[in-house]
Structure formats: structure tokens, C-alpha cells
């Protein structure tokens, strides 16, 4: 088919869309836009949940690289020297230790079992945004003793009765209140609540943080060991690079990147998301294909006589096929364009108002590649759906078409 024929097919397609049934065109474009939105929304939401979880794991659990005790050992020992070595390495923003101990909190009549975590507040600031998540009060100072910060769910709400609580809490602790912590080793101490935080990451929000100095009092000796060390990479540095460098620099502890950990912890979750995404994508494609097939089939059936006339006056069947095929191409491009706009608007809305659940908060996370892939898939499906009936009707003999 030559340029002239394609030009005529394009003219006929364009004029049919411009001067034919506007409502039919608008409806079809809306359907394609909705199908596109449907195709990208759920996967985008899952990606958003996944990205949100990964960000929170990095921020509140493991940093970019986790240094854990060697196999068979309980703690990372020779802590100060290890921290100095890690902090001196290229690409490392800061390394910070963590040590936790099971304890029971007591406040008035309430008793609550929690994990008390010891941190070095100054270093922790470089690794975790916890310091910026204070709801009331303030973050821990480097040498604070006798003071704690607690998660909002642990503090509780005084207006909610104990029997109505979703999860057990201290029933409304406020900044300045004193709480008693009874550690597993029998050490008991009263602490003043310095601040209450809320990160949105459940496991962190159910913790209580004390300073490293305070935990040394609990342990009754200098704390030159830690459960694990979290390492934050400088911007632009790859986690794998940091891991390899740590190992090259003689860090003999068990070093894992966030990616290594996520593969283990989130692998099955991500696989489930991928399966749901695939099902959602398939359903979206099937709906779009069927709808467009029906729309173009109706359009071609209603135009059979005209198709017969066009063939009679010397318009080749290829031109006729492309006339209807190109209509679908134009409508699907418009539909995809509006679908991208709709999705982008939803994305902007959700970035301001994320969907929040007790476990996670989600925004719409879509990369340009996601848009491109879904656009291409939908476009191909539309073209197939449009060209099949167009091909069929263009092959009909003139007499049958003209009698229609």
C-alpha cells in the first residue's frame, strides 16, 4: 500500500471521527482511558505499597546495608573499632548500632510488653528519619539518661477505654509523664517520656527508644557490642558497592544489602503482587479488546453499504481496512493520552493524600517505563481489536456489502 492510499485511508478515518457520531467517539475514548487507568492503577498501587514498605524498611530497620553478627555469634563485638572502620569507608554516610531488650512498661494500672531499643541518637539521625517523626515532645539527646521516646500506639489514647482499644497501650501517656520499665534481666527504672513519635511503620511505632548510655546502665557494663549495625550510604553510592567495600576493608561480620534482605523477606510478597498485577493487566486488556472489537464491528456493520460503494468506485480493500483500523489507532492514542492524564492526576492526589492503613501507607508509584509498557500493550490490543473486524468487512464482496 502506497503513501497515497494511506493518505486517503487517514482522511476517511479522520473525517469519520470528526463528522461522524461524536458521542460514539467520546465514549470509546473514555472506555480506553478507563481501561488504561484500570491497567496501571492496581499495579501502580502495589508498586507504591512495595516502595513504601522498602523505604520504611531502609529508614527504620536496616538502612542500606546491615552488618549482623557472624554465624554462631550473638552480637557484633568490638563495636567502637568496627564503627570507626565502617564510618571511614568511602560511600558510607554513617553507621549506627542497635541493641534491644525485652521489657515490661508500667504506667498507672497499665502493663505492656515491648522491645526497648538502644540507639546513639546523634548517629541515628544520619541513618533514620525517626528524629523528624516526633508528634509531641522532642527527640533523644546524645547523653540523655532517664528519658525515653515512645511510639504513638504504645502511648495510647486517654479517650479510648481499655476494652475498646485496637491494640494494647499505656492508655494515654503524655510527654513529661513517668513510666516504669522492667527489663528482662530484672533491672527496673522510672523514665520520663521525652517525646512521642509516629513513623507509620508498625514495628518501629511499637517500640520504645533509650540512649546507648541508658542501656549501658541496664546491662551494667560498657556496651561495646550490638545486635546489629545499620549503614546509610551516601547519595549516588550503590548498596552492593558498600557491601563489597566493607568486606574488602576487613569487616568480617555478616554483611547484607537491603536488596539481599528484601529478596528473602519480601520475595513471596512481591511475587504475589506480580501475579495480581498480571491478572489485572490481562483483565484490562481483555475488556479493552472486547469493547473495541464490539465498537468497530458495529461501526463496520453499519457502514457495509458505504464500504460496498467505496469498493465500487475503485477504493481498494486495503484502504477500507486501514480506514477503520486508523480510526481505532487514533481513538486508542487519545484514550491512552487521557488515561495517562487521569492516572497522573490520581498519582498527584495520592501523593498528597496517601491511602493509609495500620500496616502501610500507599501512593501510586509508576515509572515512565510502566506508562510506556502499558501504553504499548493497550495500543497493540486496540489495533488488533480494530483491525480484525475491519479486515473481515473489507473482504466482503461488493454485491453483499451494497445490499446491506
Amino acid at each position, binding site marked *: 500500500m*502506497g503513501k*497515497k*492510499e494511506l*493518505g*486517503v485511508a487517514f*482522511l*476517511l478515518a479522520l*473525517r*469519520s471521527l*470528526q*463528522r*461522524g457520531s461524536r458521542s460514539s467517539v467520546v465514549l470509546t475514548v473514555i472506555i480506553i482511558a478507563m481501561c488504561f487507568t484500570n491497567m496501571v492503577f492496581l499495579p501502580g498501587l502495589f508498586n507504591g505499597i512495595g516502595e513504601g514498605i522498602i523505604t520504611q524498611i531502609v529508614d527504620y530497620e536496616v538502612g542500606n546495608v546491615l552488618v549482623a553478627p557472624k554465624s554462631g555469634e550473638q552480637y557484633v563485638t568490638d563495636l567502637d573499632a568496627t564503627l570507626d572502620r565502617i564510618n571511614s569507608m568511602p560511600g558510607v554516610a554513617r553507621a549506627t548500632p542497635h541493641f534491644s531488650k525485652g521489657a515490661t512498661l508500667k504506667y498507672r494500672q497499665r502493663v505492656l510488653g515491648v522491645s526497648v531499643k538502644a540507639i546513639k541518637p546523634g548517629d541515628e539521625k544520619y541513618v533514620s528519619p525517626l528524629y523528624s517523626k516526633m508528634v509531641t515532645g522532642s527527640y533523644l539527646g546524645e547523653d540523655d539518661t532517664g528519658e525515653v521516646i515512645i511510639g504513638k500506639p504504645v502511648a495510647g489514647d486517654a479517650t479510648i477505654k481499655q476494652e475498646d482499644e485496637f491494640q494494647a497501650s499505656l492508655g494515654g501517656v503524655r510527654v513529661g509523664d513517668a513510666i516504669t520499665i522492667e527489663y528482662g534481666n530484672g533491672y527496673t527504672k522510672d523514665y520520663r517520656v521525652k517525646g512521642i513519635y509516629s513513623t507509620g511503620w508498625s514495628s518501629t511505632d511499637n517500640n520504645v527508644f533509650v540512649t546507648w548510655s541508658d542501656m549501658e546502665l541496664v546491662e551494667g557494663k560498657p556496651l561495646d557490642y550490638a545486635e546489629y549495625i545499620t549503614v546509610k550510604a551516601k547519595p549516588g553510592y550503590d548498596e552492593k558497592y558498600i557491601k563489597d567495600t566493607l568486606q574488602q576493608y576487613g569487616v568480617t561480620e555478616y554483611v547484607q544489602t537491603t536488596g539481599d534482605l528484601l529478596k528473602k523477606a519480601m520475595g513471596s510478597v512481591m511475587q504475589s503482587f506480580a501475579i495480581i498485577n498480571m491478572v489485572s493487566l490481562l483483565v484490562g486488556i481483555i475488556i479493552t479488546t472486547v469493547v473495541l472489537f464490539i465498537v468497530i464491528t458495529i461501526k463496520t456493520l453499519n457502514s457495509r*453499504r*458505504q464500504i460496498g*460503494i*467505496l*469498493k*465500487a*468506485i*475503485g*477504493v*481498494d*480493500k486495503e*484502504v477500507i481496512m486501514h480506514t477503520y483500523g486508523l480510526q481505532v489507532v487514533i481513538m486508542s492514542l487519545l484514550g491512552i493520552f487521557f488515561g495517562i492524564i487521569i492516572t497522573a492526576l490520581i498519582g498527584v492526589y495520592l501523593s498528597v493524600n496517601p491511602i493509609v492503613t495500620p500496616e502501610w501507607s500507599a501512593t501510586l508509584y509508576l515509572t515512565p517505563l510502566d506508562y510506556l509498557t502499558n501504553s504499548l500493550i493497550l495500543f497493540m490490543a486496540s489495533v488488533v481489536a480494530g483491525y480484525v473486524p475491519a479486515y473481515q468487512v473489507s473482504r466482503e464482496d*461488493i*454485491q453483499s456489502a*451494497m445490499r446491506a
Partner: protein
Amino acid sequence: MIEITGLRRTYRMGAVEVKALDGLDLTIEKGEFLGIMGASGSGKTTLLHLLGLLDQPTSGRILIDGLDVSTLTDYEKTMFRLYKLGYVFQDYALVPDLTVLENVSLPAMLRKDRTEEQVTKDSFSILQKIGLCDRKDHLPRELSGGQQQRVSIARAMVNKPDILFADEPCANLDSENSRMVLDLFREINEEMKQTIIMVSHEDWHKEYFHRIVRLKDGKIVSDGLNEKKHAGQGTG
């Protein structure tokens, strides 16, 4: 010149075989204005469709300028229709979404031997001839029946075809518009020596034809020159 020998066309309607055309022999000379007349169901339109390559004969041969058109492929027939033949239909059959100018230009746009400038020039020239230049940007639905049929004639003529086929072109028109259309056909025939084959069942149309072929039950029952026309006593 068109030569038809032993032309047959049968249709199957369930178990019954209907003979639409039953062994026709006919020769049509270049420049003739031929009228095919007959009662409804006599085979007029079937003959026109076979001559216009819109249908396949069951048997028999059609030679157009010496070419056996039954040997052409589907694509070759399409190109033959585009380059050599023009059609005017009873219901005008214009593309509703195209303007008058676009409708007229459409067949010319597909010709490989025409530039865009030539297409525009030819389209305007034919529109001028039919007196609808001022309606070039109108859509068919904005025109009267007579105007639409004139556009249809312009579309058929834009490629300067060897043969122009008209299938009851006045069936949907009142007598005034019918006469306007027939006058246009006569003008085209006389000025351009255009071969025109027209199907009609209106008796008064015969005054426009050079020659009249009458069909009955798929057979030619009469074939003769229009004496009135040749004696110069016609209305036209």
C-alpha cells in the same frame, strides 16, 4: 467498445435457481448513450453490475476494449474500476462525512498518475461544470437530492472514465431534478463523447438515449436506436 457474449447470471435462492440474465449477447460502441430498460426484475441492474465489474457472471464473456475482464484479479478489477469506469447510484452513495469537494476528489486522490494539484484542479473544474462550486465545503446532508446526485456524477466523472454507469439515477428525484440530471448526462455525452450506460424504468427517459436495450426475464427483447432522438425530435 464493450462486447458481451453468452452472458449468464444465476442466483440461488434456497433450492430455487433464479436466472437473472439468460445468455445475453450485446455490443456497445464507444460514445454511445445507452439506456437499459425493462420492468422490475428484468435483469437491468444485474447487467449493469456485471458490466461495471461489481459482480461475477456465472458464464459468458465481457470484453472491454478487447480485454476479457473475467481474467482480472480482484485488485486489477479495483484498479480497472478506478481508472476506467465511473458509477452513479440511485441513492447518490456519497460519503456522508466528506464535503462535496472531498467526495468528488476521492477517486482522483487514489490515482497514482495524478498530483495533488491536478486532483484539486480537476475537482474544481468538474464542480464548476455541475454548478456546485459554491457548495464545495458543504456536507451531502446539507444538499438537496438533485444536488447530491450531481455531486455523485461529478465524482464519477473526475477520473474521466471510459464508461459511465448510472443505475436508476433519477429514481429518488422529482421530475425537475430528474431532467436536470439527465441534461447533465447528455451534456457530458455530447461534449466529451463519453460512453454512458444507464438503467431506467421511466419511459420518458428514453428521449435522452441514443439506443435502448429492453430486457425481460433476463433476455434482450429489443435493441434499437432511438428513432426520435436520431430524427432530432427529442425534447433535448
